[in-house]
């Protein structure tokens, strides 16, 4: 009852917000060739201002869509009123100014200006507690990104991964930029790649406890973990279907590892594929209609796909003799995977019909790709700096960057869907 009321209010708010003040798109991210938009971001005034602005610059620079212009070039000072004439000669198209004030509770006022039209594109006030400075900055980045591109930003998303800090392996969660990393206190020293539910409230993963690999579910809302599937043999998650109540996984319960689906509400178990070889790493397409997975039925591990009922099998990869870890783009128009090329594993993209394969990485071994919810970035594991660590890059391979510290061996990153 309470919940439906809440949803109603949120809906009403959304409707109010949906009335577009200006629908101008400054950066068309669907365009094949994007010119970086020159943007000036002042250090917001106030004690926390510099930190907040640094985070915003870092967020927006990662996108590759903005060119953040160095402060040294500014003619106008932070305290002077915005004057478009100070900016257009420099070729700067947008300016961010504002303040952060308060001690324990922070209040931020941010204005984004269009220098060509000399008007405000965004003027917003934010309030938060001091220890949430990073989220405050990411929220501002999201608003700036949305105002300029018309699309939601991903700056408040998260990445989960399996880490080993020299003791036991454990599940970790961090912001997409590698900050605010936390180890989730889960039992079991061995775990595999986690997988998100579409609504971002749950993950499933496999863990070995007492000589048995079972599938566990962690519910972030209840903060509770439970075992959701086990059987004799190894049981490896797998991926959620969009409804969040069923998932696909690989189990060797009948001898060799095969692909199954399991419904947690009805306990219905269905075998979707079966060969004498190895079938692992099933990944559900965003619309739930197909499953990409790894099979060595052709003599070497390759990526295949089938409909989610197990029919209409199709082989996707043909190059190389070791292609694993498939992952769908959020639009379902690409599959990222890790393939062995010249003796090392690299991240590749391919269309679901097997055409247009491109290689995105070339340093060290690169594995476990996972897309950001907007499809513009990929997180993956690399050993290019010796120990395995988590990296991010744009989905075209640009701007590859390590985001986890070198003293944690990190693998299996999965980008949250929201």
């Amino acid at each position, binding site marked *: 009852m309470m919940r439906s009321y809440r949803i109603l209010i949120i809906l009403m708010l959304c409707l109010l917000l949906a009335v577009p003040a200006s629908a101008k798109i400054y950066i068309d991210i669907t365009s094949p060739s994007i010119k970086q938009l020159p943007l000036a971001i002042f250090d917001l005034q106030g004690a926390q201002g510099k930190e907040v602005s640094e985070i915003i610059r870092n967020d927006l620079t990662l996108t590759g869509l903005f060119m953040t212009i160095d402060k040294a070039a500014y003619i106008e000072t932070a305290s002077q009123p915005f004057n478009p004439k100070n900016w257009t000669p420099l070729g700067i198209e947008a300016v961010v100014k504002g303040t952060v004030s308060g001690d324990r509770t922070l209040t931020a006022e941010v204005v984004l200006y269009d220098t060509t039209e000399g008007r405000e594109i965004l003027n917003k006030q934010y309030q938060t507690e001091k220890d949430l400075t990073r989220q405050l900055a990411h929220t501002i980045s999201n608003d700036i990104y949305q105002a300029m591109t018309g699309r939601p930003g991903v700056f408040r998303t998260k990445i989960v991964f399996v880490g080993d800090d020299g003791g036991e392996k454990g599940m970790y969660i961090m912001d997409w930029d590698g900050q605010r990393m936390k180890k989730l206190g889960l039992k079991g020293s061995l775990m595999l790649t986690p997988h998100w539910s579409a609504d971002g409230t749950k993950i499933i993963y496999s863990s070995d406890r007492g000589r048995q690999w079972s599938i566990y579910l962690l519910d972030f809302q209840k903060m509770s973990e439970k075992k959701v599937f086990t059987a004799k043999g190894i049981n490896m998650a797998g991926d959620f279907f969009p409804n969040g109540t069923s998932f696909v996984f*690989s189990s060797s319960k009948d001898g060799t590892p095969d692909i199954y689906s399991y419904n947690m509400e009805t306990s219905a178990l269905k075998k979707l594929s079966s060969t004498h070889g190895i079938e692992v790493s099933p990944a559900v397409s965003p619309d739930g209609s197909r499953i990409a997975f790894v099979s060595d039925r052709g003599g070497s591990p390759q990526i295949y796909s089938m409909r989610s009922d197990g029919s209409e099998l199709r082989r996707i990869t043909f190059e190389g003799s070791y292609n694993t870890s498939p992952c769908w783009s959020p639009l379902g128009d690409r599959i990222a995977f890790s393939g062995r090329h010249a003796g090392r594993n690299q991240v590749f993209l391919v269309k679901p019909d097997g055409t247009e394969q491109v290689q995105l990485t070339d340093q060290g071994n690169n594995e476990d790709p996972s897309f950001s919810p907007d499809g513009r970035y990929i997180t993956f594991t690399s050993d290019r700096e010796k120990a395995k660590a988590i990296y991010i890059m744009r989905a075209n391979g640009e701007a590859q960057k390590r985001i986890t510290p070198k003293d944690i061996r990190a693998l299996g990153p999965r980008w949250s869907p929201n």
Partner: protein
Amino acid sequence: MKKYWILFALLTLILAGCQQKTAAKPDEQLQQKDGAVQQKEADKVADSRTGTKVESIDSKDGSSLTGEGKEGMFPDVLFDFDKYDVKESYQPALKSLASWMTKNGSARLSIEGHCDDRGTNEYNLALGDRRAKAVRDYIVSLGVPSARLDVISYGEEKPLCKDQTEDCWAKNRRAHFVVLGKAGK
């Protein structure tokens, strides 16, 4: 604009009302705190994941079976890269293992399949399973009942050797034996 504020106030009140009822657990308070980036125009729905705290995970896992056993009684069986066939050179060693099992009728044996760390963890876990089962099947063919043979794969998760050299990888691609005491626990 005024309408906004009334609505917003209403929303905050409702949210606050809801929270009071459910805020019993400390982790939820944290979630609430984390989602508290408030804005004049829009109210971002709380990011429930960020409140995760180490102590607060409540695990309903009942497994308590620990794998205490005797290691090193039998040598490891090694495999080629991405292969799970038991090489002929290991047959004599496995035959003496099988005759030991026959003489010690109450012993159970756990066969662990392992891989080198090249390739993906999930595929390697499956490969380790195939290796352990290939060794089990061979031992069964020598007359040891399969009920006395457990298989478990650790994939690349428990390397014996951690260097990135062929020597080291070869040592890791193994089936390892642990004698588990009496049959039937």
